[in-house]
């Protein structure tokens, strides 16, 4: 039974931009699982919006939806979809709008929450849930309405490995119940067992492929390269290796963390750090842990951004962290870095920190060239795609050539092309003497690092060996 179809869809946002869709076709039948991959900004999420709110678009072609079809959409970031404060009220929001009698709501809400594995009291504050739990809550908020077609926008980026496993199990049960799924995903291999149809959105069209690895026509995407990053980092970076950091490389520890219990004042500790940890110049450290483990809190504390954390055990550049005292020696890329953008042009955005720290303004051009974004120099940062904004925000920090750089989930939502660019410049900075600490839900296969810290079961520990084979290319930390 056909539930939805897009036929010969042509669409563009405005006359100044090219076509997003060019004779795009897609048909979804009952019980099918479709996965759509494609570069950042290619219009994947727009397909989902077109299916849910076709009346909001001015397109050519035809959108056919089965009579009485109910579609559920879970967007990428659960935080922007939360409308209430408790899980019961959140799931019931759709029921309220359908005028379901209040007496019937608790049972329906309980059923939906059980289905996604959130066996918690209705009054549980949503603020207490991890990101993965919030994502499942958003699915419950859709399931309570019994949709026949469920659309998921990039779940992998938001979830840790356990979250992905739990979501996969849930999706299997939904497919068994003849629900149809469309998943937008840069990492389709994470959901391979579920997927009936793989699609690559390129050139405004959906191109079918059968293997887990997309068969993207390289010529159609500028700079895109399917080949994995070579293990020897030096070979990647040779093109721009002439750029030198302004500061002298020191081998004394940049960051030291003494054994302590880390957490917010007057609250239960988030985790215990039982053994001392340190990061030296030229070291790259990967910090992994599940959603809600405390990675972001630790990074924010290290830069002095958490005033309600006991910082006695943390020393950065030999000092207790305090916001603003480390000047250009410290760089920090928070999650969703596009929110830091405020200047009218890309170049002025990069030059802001250079002016404030009295550094050469030419460093902005150098970093833009390294990221192959020089053509965006005079564009407004606010008109760029998600991936471009992400890289510009990173460039605005990297252009000061900090001695120590912290990045919180820097690869979230990036496609292969942008991820490759980011990894490339990180390796360059690292080789030039910049200590780097990266927090992530999981190990990044293309990333080389010398230390691997992991938060699990309330313990922050240093893994005995990096789980990444590429790390062999680097000297091992003591």
């Amino acid at each position, binding site marked *: 039974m056909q539930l939805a179809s897009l036929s010969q869809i042509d669409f563009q946002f405005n006359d100044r931009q090219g076509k997003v869709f060019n004779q795009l076709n897609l048909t979804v039948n009952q019980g099918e699982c479709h996965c759509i991959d494609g570069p950042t900004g290619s219009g994947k999420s727009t397909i989902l919006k077109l299916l849910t709110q076709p009346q909001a678009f001015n397109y050519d072609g035809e959108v056919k939806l089965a009579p009485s079809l109910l579609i559920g959409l879970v967007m990428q970031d659960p935080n922007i979809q939360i409308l209430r404060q408790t899980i019961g009220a959140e799931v019931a929001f759709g029921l309220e709008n359908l*005028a379901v009698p209040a007496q019937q709501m608790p049972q329906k809400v*309980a*059923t939906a929450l059980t289905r996604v594995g959130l066996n918690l009291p209705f009054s549980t504050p949503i603020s207490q849930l991890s990101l993965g739990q919030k994502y499942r809550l958003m699915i419950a908020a859709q399931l309570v309405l019994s949709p026949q077609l469920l659309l998921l926008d990039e779940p992998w980026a938001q979830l840790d490995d356990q979250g992905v496993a739990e979501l996969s199990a849930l999706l299997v049960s939904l497919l068994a119940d003849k629900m149809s799924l469309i998943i937008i995903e840069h990492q389709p291999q994470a959901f391979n067992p579920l997927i009936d149809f793989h699609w690559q959105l390129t050139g405004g069209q959906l191109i079918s492929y059968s293997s887990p690895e997309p068969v993207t026509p390289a010529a159609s995407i500028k700079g895109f390269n399917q080949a994995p990053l070579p293990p020897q980092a030096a070979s990647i970076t040779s093109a721009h290796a002439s750029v030198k950091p302004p500061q002298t490389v020191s081998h004394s520890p940049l960051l030291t963390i003494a054994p302590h219990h880390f957490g917010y004042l007057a609250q239960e500790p988030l985790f215990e750090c039982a053994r001392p940890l340190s990061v030296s110049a030229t070291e790259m450290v990967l910090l992994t842990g599940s959603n809600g483990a405390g990675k972001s809190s630790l990074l924010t504390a290290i830069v002095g951004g958490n005033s309600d954390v006991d910082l006695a055990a943390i020393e950065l550049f030999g000092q207790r962290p305090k916001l603003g005292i480390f000047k250009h020696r*410290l760089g920090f890329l928070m999650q969703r870095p596009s929110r830091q953008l405020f200047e009218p042009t890309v170049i002025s955005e990069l030059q802001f920190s250079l002016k404030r720290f009295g550094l050469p303004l030419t460093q902005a051009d150098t970093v833009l060239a390294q990221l192959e974004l020089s053509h965006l120099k005079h564009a407004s940062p606010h008109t760029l795609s998600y991936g471009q904004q992400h890289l510009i925000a990173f460039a605005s920090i990297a252009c000061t050539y900090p001695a120590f750089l912290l990045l919180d989930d820097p690869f979230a939502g990036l496609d292969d092309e942008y991820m490759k660019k980011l990894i490339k410049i990180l390796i360059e900075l690292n080789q030039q003497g910049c200590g780097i600490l990266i927090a992530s839900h999981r190990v990044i296969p293309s990333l080389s690092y010398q230390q691997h810290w992991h938060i699990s079961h309330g313990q922050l520990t240093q893994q005995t060996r990096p789980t990444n084979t590429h790390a062999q290319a680097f000297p091992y930390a003591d």
Partner: protein
Amino acid sequence: MQIKSIKTSAKHYCFAALVVSIVLASCAFFLPAKALLGLVIVDIALVLHAMYLKQKTFILIKMGLMQLLVTLPFYYFIHGSASLFDGFIVVLRVFLAILPGWWLSHTQRPERLGEVLCWWLPAQWSFVIAASIGLLPYIIKETKEIYTIQCLRGARITPKALRNPKNWCELIYCVLLPMLIELLKLSKQMAQAAQLRHFGHNKTPTHWPDTPDEGPHINAVNNTADHPANSKENQDISPIFTHQSTSPKTTSTREQQ
């Protein structure tokens, strides 16, 4: 029946809290200066109540002190030291006007406020007001994070730098402007999230009852057959339909539902 009685009491309690907040906030402006002491005592009771409910008062105190630190120097430079007390009274009035709203947002759930506001406002307006109140903690968190990012980027907005009024513009430029952009994006995304859950398709929506001790751990029952979305009456309000572009260039046929 039990749910109904709980719901009614929670609703009426919320209504009373809303009325008290409006009255107290109004009093902060209309009462003579001599009577403000009484209002301060009443407002202290509100703060104690919020503290009893384990709400943090740090931000409230910080906000009051900031107002004082910003306003008093202005009074000193413009009107001289003799007017400092007048400046203090102005700050006190503003603070006392804000405090009941803070208490309301920290002791009442947004959905319950929305339900009460529905009594005299259209459902859509009451949702927007309730959602805005519920969004305050998120806005504060976002503002704090953007402030941290910009401080690290070298913006002259550290507490020490802000002692110089010349740097106040930088706070607006680096923190408030990006925050405004974030809020515009967020409001658009939240509106979309609400519409996807059928918001606005029923003029008289029902309301989630207060069920403090319930949850799927107690009463999960597999019950989807009688889902309202599948009932005949609700099919009339379903927003899902077969759609074709309204563009004049469209050449394809329309399929009727």
